[in-house]
């Protein structure tokens, strides 16, 4: 009864129901549904091609196959003209028509014959199958006949735009209707995801069509509509929560909407996939759930001794050392320059400042490569300079400390101008009468600096230091390009290590777990500094 009364007296005016949000969310749902359907169908056709190839290889004739497959299928029975010869001397004959393999078009077939595999994927996505080989692997000579089949892949199915659009349109109508007519939060939360039904039906219709045409069930078919439904569930929940408050904050939310949608699509989705990957193992395009084992592996560091460069704690220590020394150098050098430049009546200040921010303006990969050249053992300028001074040339990349010195020098050079500019800005905002007062009170320079300049710099410097340390912690380019982890991966920091796991070892899951650990370390650091800066603010207020 009370519910009914409430629904008769809507708390928000009609125009404020948030239709734009519904439309955008439905568009995202449609996009996700279409994308997963596309991927699902692609994988399905691939799998069905593989299955039919299996049938071809086991059957003796191709007569029982559907015309769709025979039109894409080519089978040859190859036999060498003389047996026992090495690959380079053998002429292959197609026994079905006596044709000699000689032309350039036959090259893939020639190669296929010598391949010590029964099933593989060809260069252009074609599927190959061959009867077991009797090839002498030592001298690549052969003994017998091979039956080889090639199936050209079916061109990826075009997306069924029409049925998707129709389904989407009806779903949108339902969702808008629910949004306009339903006022109770919980009903809206239930009805919004339900409005997915027409879109879901059209997705299932397309899936079943594909299943009929290939006579095979589509793996993970239920997953496709579920993926498409996720945004709607979120929308329903948020609608029910913001219900009632919406009108007061309408403008703010309207302003937030474009950013939230783009960040949701560009940041949140990849991030979630990344988190999911951390619990999986990847091999040859297949992902397998492994639970927490990556994390246990990383954190227990049982595979390598503590002093080994691949040990997590070793790398962590290197990273902390790297971050700390860089931030210390950046801040102290930047602060010194700012103090020097901030002296009253100093001439040429603008010129000095312009010169000093040059390192910041140069792209950091260029800086890294230049400094790498400068630290080169043979032609590097650093060693030339040392030679002038009568010191033996140093093999910088040969030792941990040498390589680390090169890295830190490079990063200091490019990083201090940021701190300098931050400090300069903060120095100029300190009121001059404070200094005058200190002068009158007879304070010494050092006292003035300690009790006026430094405390007043803190609110500007602290966030810059925090930001700088996060940037340095994840400073990929310098480490990767200057030392490249030499010697033997010892100077790799966590982020370059994670990159190597992912793109040099192809262990995506492990690398994702590694990255997630890095993320949590930084998150912990941020929480800590947040408390610190809050405490600092309280002290000085």
């Amino acid at each position, binding site marked *: 009864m009370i519910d009914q009364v409430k629904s008769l007296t809507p708390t928000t005016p009609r125009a404020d129901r948030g239709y734009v949000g519904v439309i955008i969310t439905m568009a995202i749902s449609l996009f996700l549904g279409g994308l997963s359907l596309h991927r699902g169908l692609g994988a399905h056709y691939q799998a069905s091609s593989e299955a039919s190839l299996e049938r071809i290889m086991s059957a003796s004739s191709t007569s029982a196959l559907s015309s769709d497959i025979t039109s894409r299928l080519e089978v040859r029975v190859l036999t060498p003209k003389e047996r026992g010869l090495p690959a380079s001397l053998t002429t292959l004959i197609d026994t079905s028509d006596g044709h000699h393999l000689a032309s350039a078009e036959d090259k893939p077939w020639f190669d296929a014959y010598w391949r010590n595999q029964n099933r593989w994927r060809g260069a252009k996505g074609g599927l190959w199958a061959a009867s077991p080989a009797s090839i002498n692997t030592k001298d690549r000579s052969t003994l017998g006949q091979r039956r080889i089949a090639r199936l050209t892949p079916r061109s990826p199915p075009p997306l069924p735009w029409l049925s998707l659009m129709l389904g989407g349109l009806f779903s949108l109508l339902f969702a808008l209707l629910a949004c306009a007519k339903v006022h109770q939060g919980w009903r809206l939360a239930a009805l919004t995801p339900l409005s997915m039904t027409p879109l879901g039906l059209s997705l299932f219709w397309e899936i079943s069509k594909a299943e009929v045409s290939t006579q095979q069930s589509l793996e993970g078919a239920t997953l496709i509509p579920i993926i498409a439904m996720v945004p709607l569930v979120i929308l329903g929940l948020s609608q029910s929560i913001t219900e009632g408050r919406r009108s007061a904050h309408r403008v703010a939310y309207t302003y937030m909407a474009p950013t939230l949608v783009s960040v949701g699509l560009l940041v949140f989705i990849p991030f979630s996939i990344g988190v999911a990957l951390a619990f999986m193992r990847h091999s040859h395009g297949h992902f397998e759930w492994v639970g927490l084992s990556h994390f246990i592996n990383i954190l227990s560091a049982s595979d390598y001794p503590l002093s080994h460069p691949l040990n997590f704690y070793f790398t962590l220590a290197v990273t902390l050392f790297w971050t700390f020394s860089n931030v210390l150098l950046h801040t102290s050098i930047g602060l010194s320059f700012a103090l020097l430049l901030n002296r009253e009546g100093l001439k040429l200040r603008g010129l000095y400042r312009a010169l000093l921010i040059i390192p910041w303006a140069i792209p950091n990969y260029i800086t890294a490569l230049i400094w790498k050249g400068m630290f080169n053992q043979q032609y590097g300028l650093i060693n030339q300079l040392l030679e002038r001074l009568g010191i033996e040339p140093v093999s910088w990349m040969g030792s941990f400390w040498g390589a680390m010195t090169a890295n830190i020098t490079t990063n200091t050079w490019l990083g201090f101008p940021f701190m300098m500019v931050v400090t300069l800005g903060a120095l100029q905002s300190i009121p001059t009468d404070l200094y005058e007062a200190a002068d009158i009170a007879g304070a010494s320079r050092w006292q003035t600096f300690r009790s006026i300049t430094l405390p007043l710099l803190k609110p500007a410097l602290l966030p810059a230091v925090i930001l700088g340390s996060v940037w340095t912690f994840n400073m990929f380019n310098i480490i990767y390009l200057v030392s490249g982890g030499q010697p033997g991966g010892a100077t790799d920091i966590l982020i370059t290590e994670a990159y190597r796991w992912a793109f040099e070892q192809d262990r995506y899951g492990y690398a994702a777990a590694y990255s997630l650990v890095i993320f949590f370390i930084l*998150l912990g650091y941020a929480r800590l500094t947040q408390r610190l800066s809050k405490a600092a603010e309280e002290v000085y207020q």
Partner: protein
Amino acid sequence: MSEQRRSALEQEWLGGQWPHLLLLPLCFMIVTPALWVLKMALRPSQSFDLSLNPFPTVLSAQNFTDIINEPLFFTQIFNSLWVSALTTLIGVFFSCTAAYALSRYRFPGRRAGLNAFLVTQMFPGTLMMIPLYQVIDALGLLDHVAGLVLVYSTTAIPFCVWNLKGYFDTIPRELEESALVDGAGPFTLFWRIIIPLSRPALAVTALFSFMTAWNEYILAATFMSDERAYTYPVRLQQYVGEYSTEWGHFAAGATLVSLPVMLLFFILQKHLVGGLTSGGVKG
């Protein structure tokens, strides 16, 4: 009396100008590596070996004409420009309204939103790289500039939000209040008052998001395998990569790539960090 004052002035002047003794040599030291690059670019040689003198002794445009005459030079530069421009556009366009809402309104979820944007700054590049690689592969956008634009936008948008929010915080509210009295609506306030007032901030934010794309190397190198889809940094790195050491060409390219950014830096140097630091403290 007047003499006394003059000597005091003189003393002060001398006392005030001593930093030159430190600043001159230090500045020289810091600028030297940049000068070496310029010197390398200007002499017709591909080796690295330089004398300690950082000033160019020969002036030759050989290296510059060499790299410009490469068949794919303009394609790659154009890729870089296109990717950077689109990233800037997306970064600034999608973030300025949110930055305004975060700066001016108090609404449920504001703190969470602010923290979320800050947290994205801590995402290790690799954490995003692996899934983005999969997503872009799934969308069929590997070897396509659009893929890179998507990737760069993930870092550019949150950064722009924070940077702009910091600037908006410094604009006094009285301006808007008086405009409200004059009968302006929220959208007029935003377009007619906030946006024109924060032009330098928008310029700096645009510069930073331009730079994320213009200066990015590793993602482009990982995602692009077709030479025609390379952004210029990927090509530039190859000059001094594993298989060649064409330092002259590298230096010439580096000069070409750095100069526009450096120019913008000098123009905008007064506004470079305002938003970052003021935004950081207030939260």
